[in-house]
């Protein structure tokens, strides 16, 4: 981020590569479909680039990126809803417009559960696993003590497993047991 703010626009390419997976996972959770998530991720990075000089704390880049991503996803959902309404209005009333929609992305349940976590837990899960960073790197990147990172991860794990169990997602996947 510092390099980009310093004017190395090429450095932004690396920033995209570093954060694309956590962002994609989050957006898939919000939007359901991989292609939509990819489109939204692209839009998010482009918007973030134009606004980079207004990013006040480079340490907060990822949470800032997620905030932009949330807005982009909402815009996209609104546009899709509008399009669906138009499509319905143009077709016969009994035509099932939803048939046109693609099936949800693989592992959608897991990513939806992650996207639904409170922001502080969501952030550590995304950066740690999808950003492939160690806990100490996560601590440095997000500017928090290592102990906070691991505690948040522990709590986030438990919350995710509970949510997945509730939605029967675990049962199907069989690799996520909650032995209670």
């Amino acid at each position, binding site marked *: 981020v510092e390099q980009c703010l310093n004017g190395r*626009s090429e450095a932004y*390419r690396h920033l995209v590569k570093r954060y694309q997976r956590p962002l994609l996972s989050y957006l898939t959770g919000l939007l359901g479909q991989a292609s939509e998530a990819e489109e939204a991720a692209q839009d998010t990075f482009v918007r973030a680039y134009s606004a980079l000089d*207004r990013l006040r704390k480079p340490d907060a880049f990822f949470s800032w990126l997620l905030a932009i991503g949330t807005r982009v996803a909402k815009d996209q959902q609104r546009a899709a809803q509008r399009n669906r309404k138009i499509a319905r209005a143009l077709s016969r009333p009994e035509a099932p417009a939803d048939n046109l929609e693609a099936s949800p992305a693989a592992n959608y349940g897991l990513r939806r559960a992650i996207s639904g976590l409170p922001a502080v837990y969501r952030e550590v899960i995304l950066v740690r696993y999808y950003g*492939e960073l*160690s806990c100490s790197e996560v601590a440095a990147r997000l500017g928090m003590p290592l102990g906070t990172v691991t505690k948040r991860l522990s709590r986030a*794990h438990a919350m995710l497993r509970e949510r997945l169990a509730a939605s029967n997602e675990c049962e199907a996947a069989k690799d996520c047991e909650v032995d*209670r």
Partner: protein
Amino acid sequence: MNCQECREQLVAYVEGLLDESARRDVEAHLEACAACGAERDAAVRFQGRLVSDAHALGQAPLAEAVMEGILREQTFRLRRIAARRKYLRAGLAAAATLIAGTVLASLLWERDVTLADVQEAVGRESWIHIRYDLDETKLDELPTIMQNDGIVEVWISLRDGNRYTHWVNGNAEFHDWARNISHHYKKQYGYIAVQWRSSYPPGMKPPEWKPKTAWESAVGPAEQQAREPKDTKYVRVERHDDTIDGRNVLRFDRFFKDETGERLLNQLWADPKTRRPVRERLHYRTSEAERKQGKRQSVTGVYDFPQEGPSSIYDLGVPPQTKVVLIGNDIPLPKPDVRKIIAAAEKAQHDFPTSYRAVIWTNDADREIEVIHRQGEKVRRDRCVSMGPERPAQHLPLPASAEQVLEWTRKQVPALVSLFDGERLLERTGPAGADAAGKRDLPQVRVTRMAAEDFFASGGNPIVLFQWPVGPAITSYVYEVVSGGSETPAGCIALRGEKGGSRSDIYLDPSVNYICVRSVNWFKPHGEWEKTTEQWLSRFQRLPGGQWYAARRLWIDYGGPEPRRHRSQEYWNIDLKVLKADEFPAGLLDAHKLLEGVQQKPE
């Protein structure tokens, strides 16, 4: 320890991040409490699920699409600006000679303005200077956001459009309108980076700067936006009457949203009588806690209009000796002499410390872990293999820090130890796995005599080889400088060598001792060049002597020539510590010790 406390520590425990006593506490609780034990197992499995989902996401080629999107966006903006200017030019063409008259007319709108005011406004304004009420010595009183982002002063030249900004943390910036470049000084880096094409992208030349009055430059856009809202940074601008020290002034409240959607306010006061801006107030986004602590939420800047302004970024308090570093964006740097570049890289190789310990590992549990000790011409490499989760007793929880990796390797028998003592290379394998009767073979050592230069040229010193794969001792390629292009990492010099059906591209970064930031190997099986392997180095760290090294290495294997295997990629972590002679473990570099109790293979 109760169940709640134990469960909060589970991730730290599973990843081996707890100190000795905390680890023992957790283990004791896990042994006693079956429910928490099950919770731990579930956490481990769930961690596996997250990791495999992250892998399943793959690396979509998003970066290229994003960079293209950015370029499109910039081009679109420029077209909009160009269209606006064209429109403006057309409008002004009819009254080209009356520009001064137009200014005059707008001034006379305010009844008690004299011609002298107009002349002063048009003829004598050279610079706008805004000084904000921030004190560099009282950073603690500011919220974090202002410590990083608080502006102390801004200089705008009305004659040539150049602009200087100076922040409370000591950073400074200079934008040169005509040359389309900018200088950025960041105090923590201690150098000035030069960026070409700062306002306009490749292929676009900034239009000629038209000298402006302070009113046109600072107040005009706010007036315009208050009258006819357009799609600009400010979503709404309100014009109000106000007073400052008994003077009647105009106040423009400019609302805008930052990227997170939060609404912010910038205020500007201007005196219609003197046709000059008077002051400005910038409101910052601060946290609830900071507001409760009574920290500042806004800064106020006062305008003045000096005849002379800064002549370079050094006039803003940047130390006079600060070095300028060129950062080329996508502009090809002037073609330098290849020999000089290779010589610079070889010098960096030569100046690299020769006494150190390096730990190299990946975040993949089944990969090799290597510990290298080098003292002058003596080099020892211990290679261990981390066993996968199927053998939990020996499993190294990854990712881990260098210290954790080292601690783990100390408890292992290395699968391979090689020691070069300046004259001989000793390679000890084993001990081999136990046979059916449970007997283990003795470790074996192969001894090869070789000259030091051959040993180092043949990969005996991997760190230096990763970083500088250049020079006749290491490669037989004859390199040429090639023009940048999109494959070149920012600020790097691209070199290409070809022989027969193979090609090597290397990209050296002068700002980090000419380290080869990226290298790509190619071959040509069917008349087309295809990539075989690729390496990227990143996360540059500085050693106490000032030399740089890369703490991360990405290795991509595109599969060899026929048949093409599946592509693989691996990240390696590298931790390097310079050691003094007395810091090497005793006997570690002793060849005799390595030969004790082993079978010697023939040379």
